[in-house]
């Protein structure tokens, strides 16, 4: 009778383990099936900044695993060994303190976090979005305006502007200055760089570089109204020659971007990709100045002319 009970208990345990394994494998299989073959830009970076951010992610996970794995092992070992039915395990109800063990799990996480903190301090400064990239290549300047519900990219030096797509030369530093004429948005191109907020009356900066040729997806990462989901854009990284050709072709566009056509563009609506000839190189500044008072505008103009006539940026 006892042996029969023991067998059914072992049998029940075996069924439980088999079912658990099956469910776990099924879940893993499902996850692999729906992920396989898709683009995973954060883990497949195509730009220097995204690449460095990716390495940081790996380091963090690696350090974290140092804690997570022991926790899981300990949890399951303790749970199995000290379960109520197991007569072999020692029962010591007064065991409620052990300075050595406590020192271990205060100390080791402290050490791991200290290590990560140092890495964080260095990386945060190195990957500051406001920090220009070090390169011999002349950067391309793009001024970005978040609108309802589209992105406007102004190329002041090239004299063109685009909506919902940004063509850039590969292996060239891109210096973005970003503002909004809309609720708060966030400019994000996961394959190339982390994001930064776009805010009215302010100019944030983002510096990045594409490693090679390709088409990358961009989006806004902060809800900005009804058409928020339509604010996706494409980043076309092309060869230097192709970039120049694109600029020339764009200059032949029949659409002109000045303050009047800008006002139409800024009306709340989603948009297709558009290409403009830039008629007003001060348009970006005017958009920011809209939110500032007259005196501030004069002050900004004074500061700007001071930096332009003075040392280079």
């Amino acid at each position, binding site marked *: 009778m006892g042996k029969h009970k023991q067998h059914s208990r072992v049998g029940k345990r075996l069924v439980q383990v088999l079912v658990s394994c099956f469910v776990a494998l099924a879940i893993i299989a499902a996850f692999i099936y729906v992920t396989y073959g898709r683009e995973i830009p954060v883990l497949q970076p195509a730009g220097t900044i995204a690449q460095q951010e990716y390495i940081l992610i790996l380091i963090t996970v690696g350090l974290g695993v140092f804690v997570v794995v022991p926790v899981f092992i300990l949890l399951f070992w303790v749970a199995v060994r000290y379960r109520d039915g197991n007569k072999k395990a020692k029962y010591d109800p007064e065991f409620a303190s052990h300075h050595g063990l406590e020192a271990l799990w205060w100390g080791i996480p402290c050490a791991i976090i200290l290590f990560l903190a140092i890495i964080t301090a260095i990386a945060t400064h190195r990957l500051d979005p406001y920090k220009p990239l070090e390169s011999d290549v002349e950067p391309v300047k793009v001024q970005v305006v978040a609108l309802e519900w589209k992105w406007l990219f102004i190329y002041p030096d090239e004299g063109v502007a685009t909506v919902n797509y940004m063509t850039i030369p590969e292996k060239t530093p891109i210096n973005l200055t970003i503002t909004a004429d809309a609720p708060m948005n966030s400019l994000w191109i996961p394959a190339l760089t982390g994001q930064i907020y776009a805010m009215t009356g302010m100019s944030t900066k983002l510096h990045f570089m594409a490693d090679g040729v390709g088409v990358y997806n961009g989006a806004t990462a902060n809800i900005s109204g009804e058409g928020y989901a339509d604010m996706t854009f494409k980043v076309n990284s092309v060869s230097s020659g192709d970039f120049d050709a694109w600029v020339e072709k764009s200059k032949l566009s029949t659409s002109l971007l000045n303050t009047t056509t800008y006002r139409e563009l800024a009306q709340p609506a989603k948009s297709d990709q558009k290409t403009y000839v830039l008629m007003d190189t001060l348009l970006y500044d005017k958009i920011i100045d809209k939110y500032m*008072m*007259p005196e*501030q505008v004069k002050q900004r103009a004074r500061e700007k002319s001071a930096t332009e006539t003075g040392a280079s940026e």
Partner: protein
Amino acid sequence: MTTRAKEIAETQERKSLGLWVYLMTDCMLFGALFATFATLNTHVGVFGGPSGADLFNLKFVLVETMLLLTSSFTIGLAYLCATRGFKAQSMFWLISTFLLGASFLALELWEFNQLAAEGHGWWSSAFLSAYFVLVGTHGAHIAVGLIWMAVVIFRLLQRNFKQTDVQRLSLLSLFWHFLDIIWIFIFSFVYLIGGMS
């Protein structure tokens, strides 16, 4: 002391300490408002309009401060008289406190009205919004204190001081002193420091 009497004493002490604790949370409320004021008391926040230096009449504010500080003194006297059973004197000092507090509030409302009439209302700029709300929240607390005071005065006119009334008066005076302290911060950071530049 009977168990019941001990319980009643403990309940009263708990009310006192509880009010203290609540006042600490009120400190956080004012703290957030001060932080807001500090953030918006800038060139951008003023947005081309008048700043504190342009608007604040420090002599006026001094009068307001004197009124409020004196009222803290008079409510202290009211409480001391109450604990010693001097009902008439306590009522006198309490009514004086009410009048001083009400004068403070009236002056403040007049000040607000002046500013608004000149076009410098809370709708003009972020700085003015922050000013009106910070000082106005303090004023709203004063108003609550005055309502409380009126209720206390009214009840005391109706009947003799019971122990619970003396205790309620101690809670009220705690609240009133707290408002005085907040006013000192407002006086210093909004009018004195904020009024310079």
